[in-house]
């Protein structure tokens, strides 16, 4: 199983519909400061780790929707799809390709947004995402994802905070 492609639309600085095909092995992502590299990490965590907006540097989920950039109109919804190759059926769905899609749309409701989940373009839920990903041992909470600044945080944290990292694993 591996991540085959990421599709972004109006997610943070990725206004245009953008496809990022990925391969097995070791891929590096590079580019100038502020280009949007860490926004790609945020897009992956947006789909895999719906539980916490802290993780994706946003005060509220609608901060993730393209804000218009220099001179365009702000968008009203953002969409990210992760497309996994699932030949080994690590994700318990009987299909070679599994596409997980998450959409957040601005709304008049109390929270200010609606959140939608799709599996292979079929409407789904946060609960289903959780159980599919748990089977594949892909979790947004562990250190599989080392965000920018995590190294400094580990260096600066107290001995007690460091021990708590091991508690979470137990």
């Amino acid at each position: 199983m591996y991540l085959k492609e990421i599709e972004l639309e109006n997610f943070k600085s990725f206004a245009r519909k953008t496809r990022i095909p990925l391969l097995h092995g070791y891929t590096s992502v590079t580019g100038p400061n502020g280009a949007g590299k860490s926004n790609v990490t945020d897009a992956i965590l947006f789909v895999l780790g719906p539980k916490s907006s802290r993780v994706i540097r946003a005060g509220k989920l609608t901060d993730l929707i393209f804000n218009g950039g220099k001179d365009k109109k702000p968008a009203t919804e953002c969409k990210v799809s992760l497309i996994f190759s699932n030949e080994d059926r690590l994700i318990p769905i009987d299909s070679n390709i599994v596409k997980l899609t998450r959409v957040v749309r601005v709304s008049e409701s109390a929270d200010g947004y609606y959140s939608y989940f799709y599996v292979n373009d079929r409407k789904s839920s946060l609960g289903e995402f959780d159980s599919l990903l748990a089977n594949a041992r892909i979790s947004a909470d562990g250190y599989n994802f080392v965000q920018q600044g995590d190294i400094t945080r580990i260096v600066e944290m107290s001995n007690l905070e460091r021990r708590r990292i091991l508690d979470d694993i137990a």
Partner: protein
Amino acid sequence: KKVGFLKIFGGINENFKKTFAELSAGGDAELLLENEEDPLSGGLIIKARPKDKKVVRMHALSGGEKSLTALSFIFAIQAHEPSPFYLLDEVDMFLDGINAENVAKAVKRSSKNAQFIQISLRKVTLKESDHIIGVTMQRDGMSEVVFKPNIGDMADNPAEPADQP
């Protein structure tokens, strides 16, 4: 609960010793519990000794040595519960060229068994990877993705001189 914790601690400590020795090309390090009798009442101490030096407290290490130690700890945790997919965002920022290259080589080895995506501005890292993706932003504040970016064009990125290892 204590038994479960100690088992995890032992496993990660073994990984950590191996990983630090590998990344620091000859140093040694270990994890210690502040309170062995009752681990959950104390903290976790990281002790690291870079090659050819005495052991010092974590905060007396240099910036690069600390970040190499923290990275070894992270890799040790990752090795404890393998996943098919990993993402590293600018973990090589504080490292000099030799250390950054050691880390990139270690990631290259791990990428035989799992998919790794590493965001980096360093040429030694870009050179080790199998594929390179470029992200740029035009003057309109919108990001774009470029495939097979020319590393030379990335001159605005810190990088080892093209003629150097």
